[in-house]
């Protein structure tokens, strides 16, 4: 009974015909007539051939799509994932899902030696600047992704306003250092504390919300912070932002050319790149600190409580876990790491303005967490490299202008590609790059848990 397996051809043709009809309807106002300014006003040039071509193309594409889908659906129906099991079948438990640490080591190795690699590859510190800067940018997002991972990946609370805490950290350092002259190393923990406090402030009102409602309120919170930064001109300098923020020092030693500077003290020849390399290792250190703390926390009762909260909040409460404080700590800790990252951002840029903290930033960070696989540290790192490093690649695709003609700037299509990549990911790997969950403790060999069992949280 092959007919039962695939939908009949008449079905497909009828469906495709319908698509062509809709396309035709849409074409009439948009394509069917071209308007030109003629001597007597607008002149209409009919373009029915073009319309016909469009409809035919849509018809053909739909037929092809249906045929491919029919085959795929048939295949999928035959191999449902274990998640679709209506009962726990007595088969072999998921075997062979060893936890791969290779990715982690590779990432760490490249991250630690990037300045050296870049310098040797591009023949000098100066030319390597582009790569090291890119490394700093990527690591900032890795850190932000890991911070948000605590809230979204572990505790399962969807936060669309994460960038607000990043902004709080950045402004915290900028204001404290410009007004009170506090050094970076004092401001860094303060920025974290401040952001954590704001995390709590956000946490309290939204504790009762779940899912979509939580997402909307956090989104609004992010926007409120940005608008306050724009409008509170006396404190924040408004849209103009804060400039001439003191640069980072090597634990008190400035990176200057004079004799008290870093180069002179350590007997090196002055190079402005010293500061950049130092910043690189600074953000690497901060990111690794975030990672280490998260990994440690996952093995602690609080970390388990977060994950349990994501799995089933009601069960948590029945076990005596105070879900209010548990959620608040998740918000506060996630925010603290964003605060650290924010103060790093402002010490690196030397200039900040509300422009840098738009919703798009929140969306990118969230996308990193979701693409990486919620809760997976390595996945987040890979996703950050892809999401932040990917667009940089576009700049170097000069050959594309040969194909699409002069004046084609692939960078302009950044967001389009971004969106396409997201859609593709959600189709092929709906649970992110690394969808398995590694248990926090085990009696025997530690085996990863298939993402099919893991909940994504409801708010």
């Amino acid at each position, binding site marked *: 009974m092959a007919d039962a397996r695939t939908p009949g051809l008449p079905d497909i043709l009828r469906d495709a015909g319908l698509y062509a009809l809709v396309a035709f309807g849409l074409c009439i106002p948009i394509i069917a007539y071209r308007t030109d300014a003629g001597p007597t006003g607008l002149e209409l040039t009919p373009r029915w051939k073009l319309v016909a071509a469009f409809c035919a193309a849509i018809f053909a594409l739909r037929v092809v799509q249906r045929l491919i889908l029919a085959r795929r659906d048939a295949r999928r129906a035959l191999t449902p994932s274990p998640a679709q099991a209506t009962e726990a079948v007595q088969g072999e438990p*998921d075997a062979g899902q060893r936890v791969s640490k290779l990715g982690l080591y590779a990432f760490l190795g490249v991250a630690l030696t990037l300045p050296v690699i870049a310098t040797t590859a591009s023949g000098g510190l100066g030319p390597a600047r582009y790569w090291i800067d890119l490394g700093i940018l990527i690591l900032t997002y890795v850190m932000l992704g890991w911070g948000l991972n605590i809230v979204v990946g572990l505790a399962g609370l969807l936060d669309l306003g994460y960038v607000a805490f990043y902004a709080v950290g950045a402004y915290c350092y900028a204001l404290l250092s410009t007004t009170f002259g506090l050094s970076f190393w004092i401001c860094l923990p303060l920025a974290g504390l401040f952001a954590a406090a704001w995390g709590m402030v956000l946490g309290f009102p939204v504790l009762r919300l779940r899912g979509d409602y939580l997402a909307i309120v956090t989104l609004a919170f992010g926007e409120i912070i940005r608008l306050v930064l724009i409008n509170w001109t006396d404190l924040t300098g408004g849209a103009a932002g804060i400039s001439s923020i003191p640069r980072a020092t090597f634990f008190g030693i400035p990176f200057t050319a004079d004799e008290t500077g870093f180069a002179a003290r350590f007997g090196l020849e002055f190079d402005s790149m010293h500061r950049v390399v130092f910043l690189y290792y600074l953000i690497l250190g901060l990111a690794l600190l975030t990672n280490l703390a998260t990994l440690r926390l996952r093995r602690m009762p609080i970390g*388990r409580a977060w994950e349990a909260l994501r799995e089933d909040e009601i069960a948590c*409460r029945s076990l005596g876990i105070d879900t209010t404080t548990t959620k608040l700590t998740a918000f506060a800790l996630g925010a603290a790491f964003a605060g650290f990252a924010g103060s790093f951002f402002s010490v690196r840029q030397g200039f900040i303005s509300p422009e840098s903290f738009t919703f798009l930033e929140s969306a990118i960070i969230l996308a990193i967490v979701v693409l990486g696989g919620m809760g997976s540290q390595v996945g987040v790192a890979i996703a950050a490299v892809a999401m932040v490093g990917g667009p940089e690649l576009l700049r170097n695709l000069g050959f594309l202008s040969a194909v699409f003609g002069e004046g084609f700037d692939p960078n302009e299509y950044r967001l389009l590609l971004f969106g396409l990549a997201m859609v593709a990911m959600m189709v092929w790997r709906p649970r992110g790059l690394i969808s398995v969950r590694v*248990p926090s*403790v*085990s009696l025997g060999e530690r085996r990863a*848990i298939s993402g099919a069992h*893991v909940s994504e949280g409801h708010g």
Partner: protein
Amino acid sequence: MTVLTPANPKTAEKIAVGREAVLSVAHLTMRFGGLTAVNDLSFEAKAGDITALIGPNGAGKTTVFNCITGFYKPTEGMLRLAHADGTVHLLERLPNFAVNRTARVARTFQNIRLFPGMTVLENLLVAQHKPLMRASGFTVLGLLGLAGYRSAERAAIEKAKAWLDRIGLMERADDPAGALPYGAQRRLEIARAMCTDPVLLCLDEPAAGLNPRESAELNALLRHIRDAHDTSVLLIEHDMSVVMQISDHVVVLDYGCKIADGTPDEIRSDPKVIAAYLGVEDEEVERVEAEVGIGHGEAGA
């Protein structure tokens, strides 16, 4: 039935004779809008007993559970829980996580609520949140990797292992809870509740979906809990082979009101209970049962 005066729990303690009541429910009423789910219900669960709460579907049994375990705030009434050392907790005044944390009442759910993506072992460790949290110095000390937390975690794992052994899931300790068969999930949920060291364990239909053999294993587990731990059990159940065999005391609810209260034998022959809930075994059934040599409700065997 001793009715306790809410104003003076001390007098109430004096009134109670013989074995103390671990849970006293007095004049409990729960209304949802116009619907009265529980109406002026009073009963007691004695310490060290297995008390069963039975009744037709929709009689308000789960609502009573939700009131006891703090998921609902009762419209009226008092829920008094006494510990062995004499401390008394008024459950209706506690926020719901504190019903477990301070009053030490644990529960399971009708539609099992495990943490499906966490391993069996992790499920049991989450239940030991309170002692572990304290040992980890509320995370701060534990983050620094102090020895105190590590030994506490080892102790928690040992306790979890003891329960895994008891419920026969040691082999599957590292598998996700969501991958366990139904019967094993039921047992795990009970073990998880027991890991919180409860004074009172509330089980909502623990035998639902279990076959007769698994029900018998459940009976053994519940008897062990009653006898070897300082835990009293309150359970809702429709499987009479469980209720009649293991409970010391049965309370019957219909339309939110108590219609009977007594030992399993008294309940079985109570005409009101038979009419509203048990029904009459028709003759043919009994005859075939005799022929086949097995019994459906062969209780008290």
